[in-house]
């Protein structure tokens, strides 16, 4: 196993852990700061100053704390069932202000359902629904992609002044290269796990999250694992033949990728635009990130999470990892001091 690469990965993971640790500490501070606003008492204090408001509190047989706020003047009726860490179920009944269609919004663990019946509008808020893993994977992927970019020139780093050490290990170059890639892959996966754990802890500070691994979430996990690895392998293959210039490749990787993504979206209204669009589109096919999408706005403008053609896209991203890593290993075999 490549000890030097393990050290690089270890040092980077330590930095990631420090950043995520700071994030968790900030979440703790936030939790303590907002604790009084999150309780039913906060709702009560908010309404109790309104004239004509009646507030009653009771405890249901299952331990749920129920708060009922009745504002006759504004014809508003609020029932809050506080299940503690299992979340709150809030039903708000009030006169319809504007004619609207029914609306259903999911954001993280929060589900909001807004319905209309004649002149009455009912809003139901559940604060502890299942959290789709796709949210966690999205956050984990951001961090994992950053780490993948940092790690993505292991061979170029050896070429930059350490070949006499790297090439004189009593193992074949292929085995050395595979060991290096395995170390980095483990580091990237560990980053994803660390990030998910950190964000889970953050959420746990506010509620008891129930994770949803079903359906599209399982696909998000699979793609969330494969995408940073393919991105890493692509940069690895692009830098192995470089000496000191590998830093430029890593530095420009994101701006160039974003630029290509933007250019693929330009309207091909004339010949020049069409040419740019087509070139950008072809280039984008070589970038693993181009194959990752799950959300598309539906007719109401709300994100609709679905994964059409997931199988082929996942296969392409996985294939990219294999092919780009093979290119890196092939180049490493030809390196000379």
């Amino acid at each position: 196993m490549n000890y030097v690469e393990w050290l690089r990965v270890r040092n980077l993971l330590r930095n990631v852990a420090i950043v995520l640790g700071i994030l968790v500490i900030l979440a703790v501070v936030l939790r303590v700061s907002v604790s009084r606003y999150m309780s039913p008492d906060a709702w009560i204090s908010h309404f109790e100053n309104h004239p004509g408001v009646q507030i009653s509190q009771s405890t249901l047989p299952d331990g749920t704390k129920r708060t009922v706020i009745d504002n006759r003047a504004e014809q508003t009726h609020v029932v809050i069932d506080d299940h503690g860490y299992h979340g709150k179920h809030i039903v708000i009944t009030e006169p319809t202000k504007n004619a609207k269609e029914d609306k259903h919004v999911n954001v993280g663990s929060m589900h909001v359902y807004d319905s209309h019946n004649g002149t009455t509008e009912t809003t139901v808020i559940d604060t502890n629904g299942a959290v789709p893993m796709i949210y966690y994977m999205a956050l984990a992927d951001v961090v994992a992609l950053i780490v993948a970019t940092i790690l993505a020139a292991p061979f170029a780093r050896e070429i930059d002044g350490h070949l006499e050490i790297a090439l004189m290990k009593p193992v074949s170059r292929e085995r050395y290269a595979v060991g290096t890639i395995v170390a980095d892959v483990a580091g990237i996966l560990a980053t994803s796990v660390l990030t998910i754990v950190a964000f889970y802890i953050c959420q746990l500070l506010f509620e008891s999250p129930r994770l949803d691994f079903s359906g599209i979430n399982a696909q998000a996990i699979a793609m969330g694992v494969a995408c940073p690895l393919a991105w890493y392998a692509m940069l690895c293959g692009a830098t192995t033949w470089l000496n000191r210039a590998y830093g430029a490749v890593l530095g420009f990787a994101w701006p160039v990728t974003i630029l290509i993504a933007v250019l693929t979206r330009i309207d091909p209204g004339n010949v020049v635009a069409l040419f740019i669009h087509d070139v950008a589109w072809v280039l984008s096919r070589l970038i693993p990130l181009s194959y990752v999408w799950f959300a598309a706005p539906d007719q109401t403008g709300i994100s609709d999470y679905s994964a059409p053609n997931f199988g082929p896209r996942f296969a392409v991203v996985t294939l990219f990892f294999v092919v780009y890593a093979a290119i890196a290993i092939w180049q490493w075999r030809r390196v000379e001091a």
Partner: protein
Amino acid sequence: MMTISISNLRKQYRQVAAIDGLSLEIPGGSVFGLLGPNGAGKTTTFKCMLGLARPTSGMVLYDGRPLVPATYEKIAYVPERSVLYDWMTVAEHVEMNRRAYANFDVKRAHDLLAQFNIDLRRRARALSKGMRTAVMVAIAFARNAELLVLDEPTAGLDPVNQRVVLSLIINEAAKGNTVVFSSHQIGQVERAAEQIAVIDRGRLVLEGTIDDLKTDRKIVEGIFPDVSYTLDGIANDPSVARVDRTERIVRLLVTSHADDIAARLTRAGAMGVREVDLNLEDIFLYAVAPATATADIVAKESSS
């Protein structure tokens, strides 16, 4: 004891031949000095020997077999420049070698590093050039390798540590291991090596044991009464390797039979004839810069 056979080695970078048809036999259990001026191809020779650079042609055999990854278990290399990882500590470099090589002796590495006064906790970036060299040397000698290839192993070291490295080299040979090293400090090579090879512009220009080279080679200097002297065919003698004429003085580099050549110069009319012994530095200079070597050697002899 690992024997190295280099045959017809050639390494070409675009139009330039860094090594041009180099053939060497390095016997096992010996200390072999590779000498040459800057850019002569010493480092490239080492790289080709060790599989770090791919020869354009030729071959290198270790105990009659080509280099394979397992051979690296038996070879330790100290390059001329630092290849340490700046961000790693000395202890981590030791650990890296412990994990990579089965015969690595951690205790010996620690002892040698202590001898060089190097703190294991320091990062490589915090070490001076000489200390980095010392770390590489200590790790190489802790490898218990059968072959040590040392490219300028004393560069940047103080005289005390240079002496330590020379002792280590001699001790390795005493244990039956082979040491191949290069140095611009010819006195060190003379002290440690049994055999040398001198290369210049990628070509082998001199090879042999130091004792033989020093015994055989002499400068024979003759002073004639006027400038119109003739050498009566002395210059064509097979034992005369070079002739330098400076007005009334002629200096001949002879590879054998110096007394005979001196007698022939006397018979040719030389008023004064003398023989000057050569040290390794003189031999080296003759091999790579003959135009300036003779005068320097004789002048040095006269002043002493």
